[in-house]
């Protein structure tokens, strides 16, 4: 950011005095941008503020922009760290969201999906990009048509298949449809491999590297940026998915965070939803995504160009 920004600005100022001429326009533009940022950020603050409010006091002062009757009890009761009586006194249904278990389940599902999908898709993408074999382009074309099949079409047959295999309520059932491939990941990685310089591979082959050696020692290391990008995308997709885990993994021991949150929400009585608890649960469930965002956010932001254009 710091290297790109000044460079671009000086260039723009030198070549294009347009910016200075319309400084009023720039002020308006900045105001519009700040309003947009506020619209994006404010709901997050409102969630935090609610999660730190006391359930009873908040009802009386719903206007307050800050926490009402500041308390951290909501986090403790959502995590199941206080007894049922204390939780109910604080306004909850006494239902803990068994956060650590669901967090573990979400991590298992997302990490295994990323490892399997990215590795197998990279293998396939490399074969499609570099190796010669019969029906190569035909198979790749069929993969691409798979991109166009909407999720609902395959959802029901996949559900039936998992049911017949008796993989319901197992991690196997949750992960299986995404473990071996996604058409998008093959497409994305092939696109990158096609642009790689062949000379490195040729040199490695001359040194006696087999095809897998070339893939493992040459291709994977130099493809780290796109592999990271597709890993993040796959992770986020898996982490955020709701319908599939809801259908095949409702059981406590495999239930993931999204499913748990939806169930937690439907457990709160219709008349008086437990908003402070619900918002604390929401914050807690967001933490992993936010951490990932802090670590790799810039990569995501800068790689959207790449994904967007392909």
């Amino acid at each position, binding site marked *: 950011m710091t290297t790109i920004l000044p460079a671009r600005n000086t260039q723009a100022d030198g070549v294009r005095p347009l910016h200075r001429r319309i400084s009023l326009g720039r002020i308006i533009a900045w105001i519009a941008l700040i309003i947009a940022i506020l619209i994006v950020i404010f709901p997050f603050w409102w969630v935090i503020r609610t999660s730190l409010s006391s359930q009873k006091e908040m009802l009386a002062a719903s206007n307050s922009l800050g926490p009402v009757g500041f308390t951290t009890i909501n986090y403790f009761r959502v995590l199941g760290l206080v007894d049922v009586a204390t939780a109910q006194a604080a306004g909850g249904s006494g239902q803990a969201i068994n956060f650590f278990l669901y967090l573990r389940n979400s991590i298992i599902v997302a990490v295994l999906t990323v490892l399997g999908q990215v590795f197998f898709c990279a293998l396939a993408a490399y074969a499609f990009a570099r190796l010669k074999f019969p029906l190569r382009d035909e198979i790749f074309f069929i993969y691409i048509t*798979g991109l166009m099949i909407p999720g609902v079409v*395959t959802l029901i047959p996949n559900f039936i298949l998992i049911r017949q295999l008796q993989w319901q309520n197992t991690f196997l059932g949750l992960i299986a449809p995404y473990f071996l491939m996604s058409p998008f990941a093959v497409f994305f990685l092939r696109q990158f491999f096609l642009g790689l310089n062949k000379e490195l591979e040729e040199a490695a082959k001359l040194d006696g590297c087999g095809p897998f050696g070339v893939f493992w020692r040459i291709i994977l290391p130099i493809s780290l940026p796109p592999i990271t990008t597709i890993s993040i995308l796959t992770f986020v997709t898996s982490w955020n998915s709701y319908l599939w885990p809801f259908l095949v993994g409702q059981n406590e021991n495999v239930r993931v965070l999204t499913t748990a949150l939806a169930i937690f929400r439907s457990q709160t009585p219709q008349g008086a939803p437990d908003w402070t608890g619900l918002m604390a649960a*929401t914050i807690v469930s967001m933490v992993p995504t936010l951490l990932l965002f802090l670590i790799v956010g810039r990569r995501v932001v800068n790689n959207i160009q790449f994904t967007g254009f392909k």
Partner: protein
Amino acid sequence: MSSIASTQSSTHQSPAWVKRWFGPESRIAWLFILPSLIGFITFYAVPAIRGLVISFTNWDMLTAPTFVGLDNYSKLLNDPVFWDSLGKTVVYVLLNIPLQTALAVGLAALMDRVTKSSLIRGIFILPWLLPPVIVALIWLWMLDPTLGFINNVLRSLGWQTLSFLGSPDQAMPSIALINIWQYTGYTSLLFFAGLQTIPKEVYEAGAIDGASEARMFWSITLPLLRPVLVFVLVTSIIGSFQIFDTIAVTTKGGPVNATKVITWYIYDYAFGRFQMGYATAIAVALFIILIVVTIAQMRILNANQSDLA
């Protein structure tokens, strides 16, 4: 073709087709694509065909399916609820896509002109990274009829409060707004990336010719952004037709069927009433509708070619 020469020179050489299909490079290649091929066949190809087959049957998943031919499809054509849910889906797409796309283009142009900060772009992408379930919960609270923040604001302005997701009239626009909040930032980054590829000289030439900012936006930026616009519109309309998670968490098709979109209708038939045949028939119909919509879009968007490049 070279097989004649090679078979003559060495008798134990395999014929060309064997070499082509099972030679060292082919064998390695097959090994490389095998896992993905198994995954594709098991979870994409076979289910797609199986879905089509199931749509010709009546099946409750407990007893054996009975073949009913095109019955599900003729039932579909005469099912007022199907047409109603299709209509509601189209209304949702129209509430969602034009506003979202316009806002995203505007936001991208704003960022392009005033700041290229990746921090600000990062902020805009944040809602897209969150699960739709969480976004739905956040807005369920923001839009709460009595205690929600938005109604606080309306009340303090002396306006009437709204029930948003609780009202048949306002539920669908509310869901559209929730998704606009979630996806506008991401979409604007696609446009932003597109803007970076437009050569600055074009704007310089425009400025020399005395074109105003607005004029340059309409005559330079938008036409040159067309490839990105096509990509964004095609993908976001396909996604928008399949809206599900937000509705599943907030309204569950209600109030009074106001948000009973087509995916919810499929879900209801498959996992509420266990009528797999009819549910898959609706899914196949949705697939066909999406293909038609996509082809139509490609035609329309390519028809008025006006690229300067």
